[in-house]
């Protein structure tokens, strides 16, 4: 059996990669995918811990993460689509009406 720590390290690596993507990229969609990557890394941790602890709770968590991710994705993509719609005529590159 593969020790749980290997899974956890893999999960940490994926989480870090996702975080890096979320911080690095400027394209909203890729940032968004990076965040999903982070969620998946967390799922891996949950499942690995579940096996380590011999406890189903961790697996159930994945279910909830999936639901939340689904809701987030729907809303997030809707936001992106709507933002795109209002400025389809103008340059998409500058979403900087807000300072910061």
């Amino acid at each position, binding site marked *: 059996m593969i020790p749980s720590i290997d899974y956890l390290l893999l999960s940490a690596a994926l989480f870090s990669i996702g975080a890096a993507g*979320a911080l690095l990229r400027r394209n909203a969609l890729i940032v968004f995918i990076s965040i999903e990557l982070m969620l998946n890394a967390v799922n891996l941790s949950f499942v690995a811990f579940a096996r380590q602890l011999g406890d189903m709770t961790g697996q159930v*968590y994945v279910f909830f993460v999936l639901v939340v991710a689904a809701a*987030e994705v729907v*809303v997030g993509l809707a936001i992106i689509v709507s933002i795109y719609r209002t*400025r389809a005529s103008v340059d998409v590159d500058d979403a900087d009406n807000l300072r910061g």
Partner: protein
Amino acid sequence: MTTSDLIALSPELIVTVLALLVLVLDLFLPPERKAWLSRISLLGLLAALVANALIHEPNPQAWQGMLASDAISGYFNFVMLLIAALSLMLSSDYLQRQGLERGEYYALLLTSTLGAMLMGSSADLLMVFLGLETLSIPLYILSGFARGQSRSQEASLKYFLLGAFSSAVFLYGIALVYGATGTTNLAALSQQLGTMSASPLLLAGAGLLLVGLGFKAAAVPFHTWAPDVYEGAPTSVTAFMAVMAKAGAFGALLRVFMLALPQQSQLASDWGLLVGVLAALTMILGNFVALVQLDLKRMMAYSSIAHAGYLLVAVAVSAAGGETAGLATSSLLFYLLAYTFMTLGAFGVLLLLERQGENLALNDLAGLALRHPLASAAMALFMISMAGLPPTAGFFAKFYVFSAALSAGNLGLVLALIGVLTSVVSVYYYLRVVYYLYMRPAAVERPIYASSSWATAALVIAALGVLVLGILPAPVFAWTQQALALVLP
């Protein structure tokens, strides 16, 4: 699922049913009757408040250890329902003016309230997480509710991306805590941590939880979204978000950090110091950056960041345990109520001034006192309260928090000193608003959009709240302390 479970959940249930009801009714109401939605929502919130008041049997492990129904959750539910009710009263007029009055607005506002309530009464990290999402996702949508305005959409996008990011971080924290302890039930966690020594895993998990909630609470350095989102979102949403998101985040912080994690241990002093640093940074940055803001919504954003700092002081010092933890907890509760009144009140006045989604600058307030003395007086009152000057709610809120801090030894002393000094700084920008209201001749005569009796009533409630909490705070103090007796051993 038993009857007592259902009783414990009854306020939340009412809010949920209300949200669905509003959504369905929206389909059948002609546009000119949309105001009914707001009235029905208010009525429902009232019912939820009554239900909340009627819950007498504490049930700390309802729904198989998912929901805690105790004095603290009762208090939180009260505050959150109050926030929702006041926001509704304040915003219905504004929404009509902006052409945003749609049934979904109310439904989303109510679900967001539901999320915050769940956070404040969660007994399991999973519920904290789900509450967080139920609070946040409607807020993302509401931020972008003014679809024609690109600022609103940008706010929505920014809020969404950072919020989702923080959710992921929070979730990872849950995973690590789960891995370290084998449970996510807060009571079990607290029990287990009492006996075992803290592993690095647990510390990392707690840290990530803190980061995740720090985002929601807009604590420095996780605050970067707040000014932009506050500025871009429709003002009625900003008002609601400024208070509700904070209440939810601190509800969760209270449940997780102040109640579940152990106090008076190595772990406690670790996270106490960590939160203390965050609190200090938040107070300093929030107040100093607010100094240079000329846009009122941005100023309010930084002000709300600053207030998060004061609230974090309470969280930080609670790590000291014992009496301090009790004081800290009740001071946090008191502060949130005071914050609710003054922030919603201030935004309420801004809502009266805004016509069509334009941002208000300080200059727009110039000379308002001569034309609209009551609105100006109310605004001045809220500003004075936010600055923490007596005899207002803000004074006793800060007084209480600093009291808790000073009972906690050196860290608390440092935090209290930073707190009072930054309060002095904050006087500058809050009273600058008063200066513009009362002492500057009007550049342009801005009209006030004659408010409905609802908005007026909400402002009166907020003003009374600020004054009553500032002059006769004892009953609320008693309430917040009664909350403790049930929770602390």
